[in-house]
């Protein structure tokens, strides 16, 4: 497996830290080495949050991704602005469709544009936007199975908010397939 260097970024409350954690759990399930590292502290007061997830067959060296991002999930404009330059050539950028009225400043990256709010609403819960993103991400990574990913969703949220299970899984499916 080629190492994954994933950054998930967005406003606080959008659930980007959870997306990263789900990727990490998925990696564990598949016996990969993995690390998850959040931004923290007053940095978050501004309202933005992000996490770095590294997945590899080897023990992880640097849990903080300073460059060479292979996958970037940017759930808002400032996050895209902040991290786009650090994406490796050939890397994948997953964004909300509405955010990219203008073409990206880089042409050497793959772009997956997804209608996060639209698909989440369609799936039955506006809160599930990050599940849409998670779906798109798993699709883009092409390393983990859909089934494992759904298991992870249920493990992580199934207990806490069972009423959301349906919507979450549906949102994941949409994210995985509709972009």
């Amino acid at each position, binding site marked *: 497996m080629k190492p994954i260097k994933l950054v998930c970024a967005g406003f606080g409350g959008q659930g980007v830290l959870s997306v990263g*954690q789900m990727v*990490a*759990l998925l990696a*564990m399930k598949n016996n990969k080495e*993995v*690390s*998850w*590292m*959040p931004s*923290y*502290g*007053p*940095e978050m007061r501004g309202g933005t949050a992000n996490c770095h997830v590294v997945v590899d067959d080897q*023990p*992880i*060296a*640097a*849990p*903080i991704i*300073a*460059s060479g991002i292979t996958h970037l999930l940017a759930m808002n404009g400032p996050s895209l602005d902040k991290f786009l330059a650090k994406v490796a050539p050939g890397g994948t950028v997953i964004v909300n469709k509405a955010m990219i009225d203008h073409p990206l400043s880089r042409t050497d990256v793959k772009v997956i544009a997804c209608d996060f709010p639209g698909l989440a609403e369609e799936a039955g819960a506006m809160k599930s936007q990050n599940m849409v993103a998670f779906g798109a991400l798993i699709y883009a990574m092409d390393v983990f199975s859909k089934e494992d990913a759904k298991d992870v969703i249920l493990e992580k949220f199934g207990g806490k908010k069972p009423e959301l299970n349906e919507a979450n899984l549906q949102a994941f499916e949409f994210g995985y397939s509709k972009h």
Partner: protein
Amino acid sequence: MAKQLMKGNEAIAKAAIVAGCRAYFGYPITPQNELCEYMAKYMRSSGGVFVQAESEVAAINMVYGAAASGALSMTSSSSPGIALKQEGISYCAGAELPALIVSVSRGGPGLGGILPSQGDYNQATRGGGNGDYHVPVFAPASIQEAASLVRKGLIVAAKYRNPVMVLADGVIGQMMEPVELDPNPIDIEAFPWAADGNSGVRPRNIVNSLHLDVDDLENHNKHLQAKYRAIEENETMWEEYKMDDAEYMFVAYGTPSRITKSAVDELRSEGVKVGLLRPISLWPFPYEVIHRFSKKMKFIFVAELSSGQMLVDVKLAVGYDTPVHFYGRMGGNIFEPLELVAEFKKHQEVLGQ
């Protein structure tokens, strides 16, 4: 226990509870808050005590009280908060009390910043409290190791009646990694010296660090020094990575050592015979093994997230016969493997190799 994905701060807290720590006293500070919060949530249901102290000063003195009365106890904090504990740590050392202090350090000096740094190496290894004392300092490089070193720290603390510090950089505190905890409580006997209010059934116990008589105090200090020699003898820990045939040696600890490993791999892939010596115990420091290796090295390269604090210990180990180079970042910036590789090559070029 099964492998779980855990945040370092939480893994440290849980490892301590599982190992048998039964009292936690702390005060919030970034980037160790989740440790304190985990304790607030789980210590009571584990039959232990959680108190949010009014300050770091109070917290370490609560630990002093709990330890003096025989409870295996701990506190945690970060850089300026650790500074405030120095008097209390010196008291624990003077009164020979076991205690675990977890330091999840950030950037300094002063209020500094909250991002990962290793600028507190001196603070941890040279004290700052008063008097001739030492605190064993264990520095994990992964969440798994953080959990084991917490356990080890409690064992060492109890065995030698001495405070022990686990020094984690902010990355260790905040990162999540898979971790498997040893489910067994550590095995320690009750402390016969504890002032635990049982003077009805044994001669009364006194816990104290005051010795007004000079000979008393000198003898006490000699006793402490002998203990420290024993700790040096028995508890020095380090890891060697690809050192067998190495001609160059990196020295790094904590999270940066992982980045350094990548640099080693990168250089190895280019055919450079380089290895890594990672001190796990910062005091006692692995002087001897570093000295031994140093004789075979073309140069030694120390990488730290500081201006070069461990560097001094490496130089002490090496002496003047082998060059010791240094690369550091500060303030929360973290070097990357290729950054180290590039720096390494500069020195190699100078050597004309």
